[in-house]
């Protein structure tokens, strides 16, 4: 077992993870025209039929942390989340994957879509944990698709920021450590070196996260995440940055013309003729 280094010599990693409505479930609800806005006007009412799961990028952020440990770097990995009571459920999976411990900040304002508030709470907690070298986040929540939290965290913690990472490695030793981070850009991959402390956001290119063994799942089920209240870190009760005031579900009306034909080749031919007639194929 790789050691949790309690002497302070190891790398202190915090992974931020968020609970979201399963985006595939939301997609299929939307497709079947069943996506409804709840009575508050700003959350979905799915009748409990769409599960709440860990944001997939955050599971990959846990994976990124574990790969650092696998590479032989002694580290302590703490997973943290901000959300309502139920949101703590995702932490068990992270611990089962291999994180050492978990903390939940219970915040009832988490449904307002205010990443600035979330980042303030997380920054408060991270400062309290002390000597955190590396904060790993997902590139964005698959709910609001904003990617606010990692950037705001870096500013508040005065840490370096690297977004869109497909791999994180730790170089050097206790005397002087730095990160080597592979980033995905629209032109392809680039590699950057980042000083510690740093906030790094993880993109899906990092690959499939490991699956926790059933033994670890059993163990994790017994472990209780530590619990904090939002008021421990932030006196304002509501939104401090932005606030979702309304959700709007678009009414998508299809207008597709299905090209019929006796064979695939015949359909292909009819399609090409249509596109050509409309001058859409150039030349």
């Amino acid at each position, binding site marked *: 077992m790789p050691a949790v280094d309690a002497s302070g010599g190891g790398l202190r990693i915090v992974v931020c993870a968020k609970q979201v*409505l399963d*985006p595939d479930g939301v*997609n299929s*609800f*939307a*497709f079947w025209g069943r996506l409804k806005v709840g009575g508050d006007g*700003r959350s*979905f009412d799915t009748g409990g039929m769409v599960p709440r799961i860990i944001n997939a990028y955050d599971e990959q952020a846990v994976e990124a942390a574990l790969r650092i440990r696998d590479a032989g770097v002694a580290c302590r990995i703490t997973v943290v989340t901000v959300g309502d009571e139920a949101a703590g459920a995702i932490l068990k999976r992270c611990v089962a994957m291999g994180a050492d411990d978990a903390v939940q900040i219970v915040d009832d304002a988490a449904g307002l*879509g205010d990443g*600035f508030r979330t*980042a303030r709470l997380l920054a408060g907690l991270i400062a309290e944990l002390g000597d955190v070298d590396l904060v790993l986040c997902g*590139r*964005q929540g*698959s709910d609001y*698709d*904003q*990617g*606010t939290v990692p*950037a705001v965290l870096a*500013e508040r913690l005065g840490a*370096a*920021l690297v977004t*869109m990472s497909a791999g994180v490695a730790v170089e050097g030793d206790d005397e002087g450590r730095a990160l080597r981070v592979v980033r995905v*850009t*629209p*032109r*392809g991959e*680039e590699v950057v*070196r*980042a*000083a510690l402390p740093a906030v790094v956001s993880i*993109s*899906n290119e990092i690959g499939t996260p490991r699956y926790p063994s059933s033994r670890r799942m059993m163990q994790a089920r017994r472990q209780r995440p530590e619990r904090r209240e939002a008021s421990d870190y932030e006196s304002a009760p509501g939104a*401090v*940055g*932005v*606030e*979702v*005031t*309304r*959700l*709007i*579900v678009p009414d*998508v*009306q299809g207008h*597709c*013309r*299905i*090209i019929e034909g006796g064979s*695939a*080749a015949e*359909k*292909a031919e009819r*399609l*090409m003729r249509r*596109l*050509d007639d409309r001058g*859409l*194929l150039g*030349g």
Partner: protein
Amino acid sequence: MAEHVLVLVTAVEPGGPLRDADGEALGAAQSLARERGCEVACALIGGGVAPAATEAAERGAGLILTAGAPGLAAFDGGRCVTIAAEAVGRAGARVVLIPRGPDVLELAPRLAARLDGASVVGATEVRAAGDDVVAVAAVFGGAARAEYAFRAPGPRVIGLAPAVAEVPERRPGRAAPTVALAIPEADGRVTTIEAAPDVSGPRLEDAKLVVAGGRGLQDGENFALIRELAQALGGMPGASRAIVDDGWASFEQQVGLTGKIVTPDVYFAVGISGASQHMAGCANARCIVAVNTDPEAPIFTFADYGIVDDALDVLPALVRLARERGA
């Protein structure tokens, strides 16, 4: 300083023009400025910004702020945020608009955090609401939209989605006062050690025709058919994230919310189900063609033409026809 609505442009190529996205941001800023009874300012950060600065003034900006230095052609978050923060102060900006581009995800929230403001990215609409503004952006990849109000004391920093406004017309000879911004030293906390490949070939974002494949291709090898059809039609191949994750196509070919946003005349979606996160990248195509075995696949709600059949039968036929046509 009287208030301006600030448009913030980064990573201007040395001596390069404004991009379409920059022009659209100027257009969006102009309508907001009218409602707020103020003018538009444009900050340009990049390798060499003089031509872009002239163009911004000719497209209606009443104040130009520049930071041109060779090291700024590529986005450097730490420096850009510091420069941008000065620009906000100089322009007395309460509202900052950032054109779409890869840097906005870092720039918008960092700038907002630095100035005790707040940000929204991917805004498809920005409108005045009393003294303030409201931004609308897609959620869950476009399954729905959210309206955001701002609650922070500082500036409202808004990253824009494609096509939020028209590019304002250019009036040659129109000039505006120009202020040079201080350029801080790089802080050295993040340094590039291997740059991204310098691709100078055609860009997927600019392609007039895109043939994209998804899991319905059954096997990675069949992506060759996508490439063949794209080539035969003079277009470019694209991919869903599912098959990029599977290694059948490369990340640069991914279309969607977290890939490229394309706007071709024709977009072929072959074996792609039509998830909102995929459609976020191609919904602005003039014509969408779907090939899918499942007549109930969501892609048919978005498509203009559909073929319900096996991609592996349709693609070879299309390739043959396209080649005959080209010959």
